[in-house]
């Protein structure tokens, strides 16, 4: 292997791993078990897992069709729409959360309608956490699914059409299975992003234990007074996400 590749690769890996080691070295291992089983940690962890999963489901339901339209649809201004989709990637999450408040908050145009017609108010609710996480995480899904769809041969859809398949049937039985690895990869990324989401969540959904305090919020607040607790929470977040990502990749993407 050429050193011109190996040296930066090793540096890159070290760059990613060293902060992790710092975190683990600081962890209060002796008190870890009782800290882990404290109700605050368990509540935050449960809320995080539930919200990230619901947000991911939301992203898949909306994001896969969106990716399909971007990859296959014959629509004007596709490049512009694609750029719009990536906005949450570049927007600071706090701004994203504020933008959600402007739109879906009590005084926002959509939020007002939701409130008046359905009595639904998203800010400061668990549903709000899901919305904030989905907003930030969806581009990850759309981009990777769209990439997979564009790489997939559209002639398979044509073949399905000549065999009598409607576009929906062809999408379900031919297109989707052929891009499954891309969808899984996108879903995993999306879930991981949702799990770690902080800025948009605290801005849009606020922070209240058992309702909107997810792990990252708990970590941030714990840092204020009890850095050890923050480290414990972070280690838990880390362990859960590494375990889930590793197992999913193993199963679906073949390592």
């Amino acid at each position, binding site marked *: 292997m050429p050193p011109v590749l190996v040296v930066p690769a090793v540096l890159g890996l070290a760059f990613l791993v060293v902060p992790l080691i710092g975190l683990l070295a600081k962890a209060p291992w002796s008190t870890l078990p009782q800290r882990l089983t404290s109700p605050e940690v368990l509540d935050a962890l449960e809320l995080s897992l539930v919200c990230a999963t619901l947000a991911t489901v939301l992203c898949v339901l909306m994001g896969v069709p969106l990716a399909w339209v971007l990859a296959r649809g014959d629509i004007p201004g596709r490049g512009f729409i694609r750029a719009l989709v990536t906005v949450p990637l570049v927007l600071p999450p706090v701004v994203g959360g*504020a933008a959600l408040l402007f739109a879906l908050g009590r*005084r926002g145009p959509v939020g007002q309608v939701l409130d008046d017609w359905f009595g639904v108010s998203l*800010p*400061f609710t668990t549903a709000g956490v899901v919305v904030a996480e989905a907003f930030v995480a969806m581009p990850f899904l759309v981009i990777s699914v769209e990439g997979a769809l564009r790489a997939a041969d559209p002639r398979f859809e044509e073949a399905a059409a000549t065999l009598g398949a409607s576009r929906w049937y062809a999408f379900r039985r031919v297109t989707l299975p052929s891009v499954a690895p891309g969808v899984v990869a996108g879903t995993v990324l999306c879930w991981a992003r949702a799990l770690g989401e902080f800025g948009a969540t605290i801005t849009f959904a*606020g922070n209240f234990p058992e309702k909107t305090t997810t792990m990252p919020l708990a970590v941030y607040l714990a840092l204020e007074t009890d850095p050890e607790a923050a480290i414990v929470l972070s280690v838990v977040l880390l362990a859960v996400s590494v375990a889930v990502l590793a197992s999913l990749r193993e199963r679906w993407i073949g390592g």
Partner: protein
Amino acid sequence: MRRLVAALVSVGLLVAGCSESSTGSGGTPTGSSAPGTGVTGTVTVFAAASLTESFTRIGKDFEAANPGVKVTFNFAGSSALAQQITQGAPVDVFASAAPANMQQVADAVSPTAFARNKLEIAVPQGNPGKVAGLKDFADAGKKIALCAEQVPCGAAAKKVFTAAGITAAPDTLEQDVKAALTKVRLGEVDAALVYRTDVKAAGASVEGIEFPEADKAVNDYPIAALKKAPNAKGAKAFVDYVLSDKGKSVLADAGFAAA
């Protein structure tokens, strides 16, 4: 090169001194922050987020009074700042929103209280939630934002509620006072407990309501130069300037009470 810079700075100081005396509008400079004391370079100040507006102004005034000196600020939550300082951030001055955070910084040289702040009820313009006083914070039907207990404004709020015998029913515990205020400003909550200075800084979009229990949780702001200050002279000069009448008048304008 360094000699050249020093020469230019001294020329600058001379010119500044002349112009000030010639216009005669500068007032009487007090203490060691007077021009010509040899303060140079950059003064790095870590200050509580609630000091953002007032310290930015003080910094400008200080720079005007000490030509050639540059003040750079890092505004953030006091505890985060205290942590950065103990981790070795190169800081000259630390101004905290609570004595507790100042105590975490072993390096602080004789902290002095320079201002005090107290809580006020912040409501959106026009008070749509019809909040009258502290007891409305127990109303589950109203949307309420408080600071999280881990941050100073949250700790103060807790003291106030204990003193008033009220169990608050907040919808969210914000990570800092500015976040709580933002929720008020956007009308997402009917009321929040924030500092007087924050209400004042928010301008017309937020209205403040004073309440008697606020006196139970008066918050002293300590300031100190740091032992390892890279610019020790500058640090001292800045602290003295904040404690001077000029500094106090800026702080009073921002809604702080004198310590």
